[in-house]
C-alpha cells in the first residue's frame, strides 16, 4: 500500500486507511485462530516446534498491531527509537529474569520442596501432593520410582552417568577412597530426599564429595537426588561395604 503523508489538522484531508485496517484485522483473526486451533490437533501439539511456532505467531501479531494500527512502520524514526529501544531492553530483562530463575541459588536445608516443575519432569507422581515435605513415606517413594522408571528417570540418570559415576561407579557400586556404595541400605549423610539434596548441593567437607550447587541447577540436583535414592537396596555385584547408617525400609 502507499503511505500518504497526512497532515495533523491540515487543510487536505488524509487518505482513508479503512480498507487496509480491515485487511489487517482479518489477518489477525486468522493468525489467532491458527494459534489456538493448532493446540487441538493431537498430531501437531506435542511436536517440538509448537512452542516456537505460536511464539513466532505472537510476535507477528505484535508487529502487525504496532506497525499498522499504531502506524509505526511508516512513521518518523524518533517514534521508532522511543518505543523500540525500551522494548528491546524489556525483552532483554525478561529473558534474563527467566534464565536467572533457573540458575538462581536456592537455600539448602529445611526440606525438599516439590514444585510444579518437579511434577512435570515426571519424577514425582501428580498425586503426590504439594507442600514442604521433609520425609516421604516409603510406599509413596516406591510408587514414584516405579512411575519414573517408565520414563528412564530422564535427567537424573543422565546426571548420574556424567557426573556421579566418576567416583561412585557407573552402576553406583562405589569406588574405594572416592565414593561410597549407593546401592546398599546405608547412607553416610542421611537417606531422605532432603538430605541427599543437601549432600549433593553442599558437598561434604574433608571428603572427595564436592558442592555441586556451583555448577548444577537446583532442578538437576533434585533429579539426581531422586535417582540416587531409587538405587537403594539394589545391591549391585562387587559394591563396597556398607558405611554409615542403615536406612530402614
Amino acid at each position: 500500500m502507499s503511505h500518504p503523508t497526512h497532515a495533523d489538522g491540515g487543510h487536505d484531508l488524509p487518505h482513508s486507511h479503512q480498507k487496509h485496517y480491515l485487511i489487517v484485522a482479518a489477518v489477525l483473526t486468522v493468525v489467532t485462530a491458527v494459534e489456538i486451533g493448532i493446540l487441538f490437533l493431537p498430531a501437531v501439539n506435542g511436536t517440538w516446534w509448537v512452542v516456537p511456532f505460536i511464539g513466532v505467531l505472537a510476535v507477528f501479531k505484535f508487529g502487525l498491531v504496532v506497525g499498522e494500527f499504531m502506524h509505526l512502520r511508516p512513521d518518523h524514526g524518533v517514534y521508532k527509537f522511543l518505543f523500540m529501544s525500551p522494548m528491546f531492553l524489556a525483552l532483554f530483562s525478561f529473558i534474563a529474569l527467566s534464565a536467572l530463575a533457573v540458575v538462581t541459588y536456592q537455600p539448602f536445608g529445611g526440606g525438599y520442596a516439590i514444585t510444579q516443575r518437579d511434577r512435570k519432569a515426571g519424577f514425582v507422581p501428580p498425586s503426590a501432593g504439594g507442600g514442604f515435605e521433609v520425609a516421604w513415606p516409603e510406599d509413596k517413594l516406591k510408587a514414584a520410582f516405579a512411575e519414573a522408571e517408565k520414563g528412564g528417570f530422564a535427567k537424573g540418570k543422565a546426571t548420574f552417568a556424567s557426573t556421579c559415576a566418576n567416583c561412585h561407579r557407573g552402576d553406583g557400586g562405589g569406588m574405594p577412597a572416592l565414593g561410597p556404595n549407593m546401592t546398599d541400605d546405608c547412607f553416610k549423610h542421611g537417606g531422605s530426599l532432603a538430605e541427599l539434596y543437601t549432600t549433593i548441593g553442599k558437598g561434604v567437607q574433608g571428603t572427595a564429595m564436592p558442592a555441586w550447587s556451583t555448577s548444577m541447577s537446583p532442578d538437576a540436583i533434585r533429579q539426581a537426588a531422586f535417582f540416587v535414592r531409587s538405587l537403594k537396596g539394589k545391591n549391585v555385584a562387587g559394591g563396597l561395604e556398607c558405611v554409615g547408617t542403615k536406612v530402614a525400609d
Partner: protein
Amino acid sequence: MASIADFAGAQPPVYHQERESKYGLSDWLTTVDHKKIGILYGISGLAGLAVGGLEALLFRIQLAQPDQHIFVGDQFNGLVTMHATTMVFMAVMPLIAAISNYFVPLMIGARDVAFPRLNAFSYWTFLFGVLLMHSSLIFAEFPAAGWTGYAPLTTKPYGAGGIDFWWAGLAMLAISSMIAGVNFVVTILNMRAPGMTLMRVPVLAWMILVVQFLLAFSFPPVTVGLILLAFDRTFGSVFYETSMGGDPHLWQHLFWLFGHPEVYVLILPSMGIVSEVLPVFSRKPLFGHHAVIFSGIFIGFVGFGVWGHHMFTSGMGPIADAAFAVTTAIIAVPTGVKIFNWLGTLVHAKMRLTTAMLFAVTFIPQFTIGGLSGVMHASPPLDLQQHDSYFVVAHFHYVLVGGALTGLFAGAYFYLPKITGRLLDETLGKIHFWMFIIGFNLTFFPMHLLGNNGMPRRIFTYPADAGWNTENMIGTIGVVFQVVSVLIFFYNMMVSSKKGAVAGSDPWDANTLEWMIPSPPPVHNFDFTPVVLSERPLWDHKYTPGFEITVPAQREEIHMPSYSWRPIIVSGFVLLVLIGLLSHIWALSVVGGVGIVVGVYFWVSEPV
C-alpha cells in the same frame, strides 16, 4: 567583536495568556513556570541534603569510638537507611531535577518544557512522596532495611511499619520520576531552538537527556518490585515468601535493574556540569565534544546490562557472574574516555580558578578514584572479598560525593548567579571548597583501608581491639569538616543572593544560550528565539565573525502557559490513594482514585 549587549535592543514579545499570574504563596503552589519549579526542586534538594547530612553526622558520632552505645541496633539501621534514601532520592536527584528544570529550556532556547502542568505534577508528587516517607518518624519507626530494601528484611515478619511508608514514598517518587523523564525527553528532542542539531545540544543538556531516558525506562522495574512488596505486605501475596517457594532474589534483580541505571542518573548530570564548567574557565572548547556525548549514550544503554555485579555474592552461578563481569568491565571504557576528554580540555589552558572551576577540576581525580575501585568490583573473586565491607562504602562515596555532589557544587557556583542575579562570594566559596574536599577525603579515604582490614558495612559498633579505631575517628572528624563547609555554603547562598555582586547576563564569558538573557531571566526566557549556528552559540556570537546571533526586527507572538491548581490537586489524590493503602483504610484509596479521574477530567478541559 559582537557583544551580548546587542540583545538589549530586542523588543519583548507579545504575550498570550489565559489567566494573569498570581502572587504570593498561591503563585508557588500553582506555578507551571519551569524556572520556579526548578527553584522549588532546588530548595527541596538542599533541605534533603541537610537532613541526610544530619543523619550521617549522627551515625558517624556513634562510630567515632569503639563500643559506643548511642544509636544501637535498629536505631542505627534506621539512620543508615534514611541517610542513603534521603541522599539519593531527596537530595541529589532533586538537585539534578532543579538544574534540569531551570537550565534545560534555557540551554536549548525554549520558553518552557513540553508539558508545563505535568512538570508541576512531577514536583508535587515528588514532594508528597518525600513527606510521606519521612512521616514514618511520627507514625511508625524509621524503615531500617537498608536503602536497597532487600527482602525478606522488608517483608511483614521482619520489616516493621516504617517499611510501608518507605515503599509508598518510593512509589510516589517513581511515578514522579517516570513522568518527568518522559516530559524532558520530549522537551529536549522537540523544543530545541532552530539550528540546534543534536550535536549542537550543550553537553549538560545531552547528559540530562540520557538521564531522563534512564528515569523513564529504569523506574518501571523497581515500581514492579515495590508493587510486589506492597502486595506481600498488604494483601498477603507470596512473592518474597520462601516457605511458599518464593525467592527473595527476585527483589534484588528488580531493584538493581533499576538501581544500576540510577547510579548513572546520579553521576551523568555532574559529568555534564563539569563538561560545561571546564571549557568556560579554560577558555577552550571541550576536547572531543562528540566523544563525551557518545560515551554518555553508551553508558546509558550498557547501564541496563550490568545490574548483576551487585549480586555476585548471591550465587547466580558462574555463567551469569561471567556475563555481568564482562559488561561491567566494558562500561568502564566510556567512563575512561570522558576522563581523558576533561584532561585534554585542561591541557595548555589558561585557567581561571574560580570556586566553580576548583570543584570541577577536583571532580576528575576524585571520580577517577571511585571509578577505579568500581572496576575492581567487576571481578567476581575480588568482589566476593569486598562485598558489604567498608571498601564498597568508600567506592560509592567517592563516586557519589566526590563525583556527583562535587559536580553539583561546581554547578551551584556556576549557575546560581543566573538564578539569583548575584554572584556568590568567592572567599567563602573557597573556604567551602577546601574544607569540603579535605573533610571528604579524610572521611572516605581511610574507609578503603577499613574495608581491606575487614570492617563490614552497617554494623553499629566494633570492638576496641579490632584495629579500626584510628580510621573511624578520622572519618568522624572529616564529617564534621564537611558539615561545617556545607553550612558555610548555605550561608554564602543566603547572603550573596541579597548582597552579592551583580552578575549581569554573562558573568563567566560563557558559551551557551542561557547566558545571553538577563539574570534572573524574564518569565518568557527569550525575547526572541535565537537561531543556533554552532556548538558554542554565544561564544561564537562574541568572538567568531559571521556567527553572530541576529535580532529579528519583528516582535514575536508567544503563548505562555497559565498557572493551574490541577497538578497539585491530582497529586494530592495520588497521595490519598497511597495513604489509604498503607493505613488499610480502603475508603481513602477509593476516594483518591475517583479524585484522580475527576481531577484529570478537569485538567484536560482547562484552557492553558
